[in-house]
């Protein structure tokens, strides 16, 4: 029995609309890959509108490293290459065939293949981007060996998909994925489970991994927090992180010998009529998944969770790394003397509203900012929700001052946006913490490259 690491600081946000353990299917015809999902990637388009693609056909590559390919999740016809401001490549939309046709790939047997051969398969199939690295939270560099690989087997964020539920019914795909990672990294693989809640045998009986047990409020499930408590990332070191469901995808690639992008996603949030799981493929069109499921028009669609997810249009697409679609009401309304109201139903981490004492039911949140942006005034707030030996405000100020050496000293290599998301949520001054942190990470990454 290994020891349990208890996370004491943090906040579990209980929202209304958790997905029920039912897997439904949705009739989805349009799928897309969004280059904006991959931070730091400079896309070079490899297809044009009207092209016919198979599942696994490369759609674009990264100009920084042209071995990293991004492939079609389904077969069909490229109907749209969506561009945003300054011709930013936003999405490559595919109108799908009724039955997917797969690109034939030479996938060697795991036992016989060398690490280089396996990496090559991952790169060519489009599965490599599942592997992300710390520092910077970007796609791992194929040539850099990590010090260790970390997988968090539980998600503590609001309305998170139940990973124990989703990892089942995949045969031994997760185990095969772990074997792949062990082979190509040559480093120990850490599987971080919840000390009390993790129940799936795929996790509990995983072989060849170091199992670490955690408990506590969100962000206990964030892999960055876990790494910090196990073995923090130092300057010059690289670790890999993956979502366990993506590990299973990698495993399935080697079991099925084709890149099957089928994915079960949670559809959750207060505005979803029947929150549950939907079986579809990666990059599915959200409007088609949620058709007839959402009450009202004034809602926000989020690919991912409410803390770190991406805001998408109603006809947007599921993100590459996301296993959750959240739909919550927009908060674009005025509130008369809102600051003076007793706030019996207000969502707040602070004790400034009696709702903390009275309101035990899950919240129906909205997207209102609840105030204007101000300078840093209140101190000691962020520290209450950041279970790391890091001074968050000082780190953010170092970023604002563009002081790279100070950022290093204050631990920027150990963090990424999701770890600081709660700081942003509870901030009295409404400071855009995640954007500032990303700026800092980019600054350091550029300086180091």
């Amino acid at each position, binding site marked *: 029995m290994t020891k349990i690491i208890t996370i004491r600081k943090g906040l579990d946000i209980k929202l209304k609309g958790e997905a029920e353990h039912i897997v439904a299917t949705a009739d989805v015809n349009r799928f897309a890959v969004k280059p904006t999902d991959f931070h730091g990637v400079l896309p070079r388009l490899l297809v044009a509108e009207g092209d016919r693609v198979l599942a696994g056909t490369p759609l674009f590559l990264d100009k920084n490293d042209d071995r990293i390919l991004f492939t079609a999740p389904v077969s069909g016809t490229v109907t749209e290459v969506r561009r945003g401001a300054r011709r930013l490549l936003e999405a490559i939309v595919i109108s799908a065939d009724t039955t997917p046709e797969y690109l034939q790939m030479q996938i060697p047997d795991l036992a016989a293949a060398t690490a280089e051969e396996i990496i090559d398969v991952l790169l060519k199939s489009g599965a490599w981007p599942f592997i992300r690295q710390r520092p910077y939270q970007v796609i791992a560099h194929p040539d850099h060996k990590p010090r260790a690989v970390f997988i968090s087997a539980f998600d503590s964020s609001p309305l998170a998909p139940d990973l124990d539920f989703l990892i089942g019914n995949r045969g031994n795909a997760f185990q095969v994925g772990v074997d792949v990672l062990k082979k190509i990294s040559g480093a120990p693989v850490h599987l971080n489970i919840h000390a009390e809640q993790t129940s799936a045998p795929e996790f509990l009986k995983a072989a060849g991994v170091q199992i670490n047990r955690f408990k506590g409020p969100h962000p206990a499930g964030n892999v960055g927090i876990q790494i910090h408590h196990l073995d923090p990332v130092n300057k010059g070191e690289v670790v890999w992180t993956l979502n366990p469901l993506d590990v299973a995808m990698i495993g399935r690639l080697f079991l099925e010998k084709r890149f099957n992008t089928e994915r079960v996603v949670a559809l959750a949030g207060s505005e979803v009529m029947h929150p549950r799981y939907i079986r579809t493929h990666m990059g599915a069109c959200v409007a088609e998944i949620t058709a007839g499921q959402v009450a009202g028009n004034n809602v926000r669609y989020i690919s991912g969770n409410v803390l770190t997810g991406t805001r998408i249009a109603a006809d947007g697409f599921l993100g590459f790394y996301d296993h959750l679609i959240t739909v919550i009401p927009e908060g674009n309304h005025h*509130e008369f003397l809102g*600051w003076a109201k007793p706030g019996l139903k207000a969502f707040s981490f*602070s004790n*400034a509203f009696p709702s903390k004492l009275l309101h035990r039911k899950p919240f129906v*949140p909205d997207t209102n900012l609840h*105030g204007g942006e101000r300078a840093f005034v209140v*101190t000691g707030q962020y520290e209450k929700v950041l279970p790391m030996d890091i001074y968050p405000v000082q780190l953010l100020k170092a970023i604002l001052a563009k002081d790279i050496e100070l950022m290093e000293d204050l631990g920027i290599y150990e963090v990424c946006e999701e770890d600081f998301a709660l700081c942003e949520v509870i901030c009295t001054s409404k400071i855009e913490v995640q954007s500032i942190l990303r700026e800092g990470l980019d600054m350091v990454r550029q300086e180091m490259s």
Partner: protein
Amino acid sequence: MNSLRNFLDKVKPAFQEGGKLQKLHSTFDAFETFLFVPDKVTFKGSHIRDSIDMKRTMILVITAMLPALLFGIWNVGFQHFKVNGIEADFWMRVFYGLRTVLPVVVVSYITGLAIEFVFAQIRKHEVNEGFLVSGMLIPLVLPPDIPLWMVAVATAFAVIFGKEVFGGTGMNILNPALTARAFLFFAYPADMTGDKIWVSGTPDGFTGATPLAEAAIGNTGNIPSVFDMFMGWIPGSIGETSTLAILLGAAFLLITGIGSFRIMFSVFAGGYLMGLLFNLWGANAYMEIPAYYHLVMGGFAFGAVFMATDPVSAAQTPTGKWIYGLLIGIFAVLIRVLNPAYPEGMMLAILFMNVAAPLIDHYVIESNIKKRRRRAKKAALLRQSV
């Protein structure tokens, strides 16, 4: 409320860029957001946000000051009728107190807010709510009969030189309210010190020293009872006398989580410890008063609860807050007892520690940095040896 909302929406364009009244944009914005929480939604980052904002925070701090203010109003009247030998009932005292205190509060708010609005407009940002608290703190630490023009001058000095020159709310080094008081203390000592000023409307030839003044000249026998000082029916600054009223505010700040427990507790602990030390030394009568007297005398409690806890000018790291508070308590009692020229040591102790707070934080953070550097070095050595 819809008609009000519609009216605001109708006049809004005039205040925006290019409108006739665009010079009043910040002012309009301040009033609009005061009336309605804006309909602004999250754009990037987290999609949901805490309901707390600066307005709520500041309103809660003002609420916490209300017991001290209300008691102060009553006490101003009570002291006035007492020294003049006039029988008066509760409402007469309150009425007299209101007549004396309200103008001070109004002048402080009008002066300060006017300057804040101008600076917000020049800097093109929203009006910060910080002055809502400072504007109430300033009257509470002044003697009741302070000339109103002095209140205006001191407030202007505090807002401009205490805050805006550093970049506005959140950037200031000194607590603005204490800056105002210190300004008056050094610029107009005759109106800020002595035996005559602590009771409003005194008869000729009256002297009514505060407990601190009595203690400073060694008349420890003249110090009122601890119960009187705790309840606060003694002469003194408008809002500082009643430790009970202040503790009510402290409880409110701690329950709502707005005030720092670390700072409040460590200030009281520091003051008490220093008092004990002086008891051991015992070189004069002042040193021999019981240590807990210091905590209920003068502005100690008020400073500990409302001034030292100002998050901007206090230490910002959790460890730093303990040190910062402890030193405030120690210095306050040290100055009181050893320097008879400054009977109220609390103000100077807090201002001094405001200046020292960044240094404390520096060393606290430096130890975190050193730990991280050591760890990185060890890891690098390990990698090399492998």
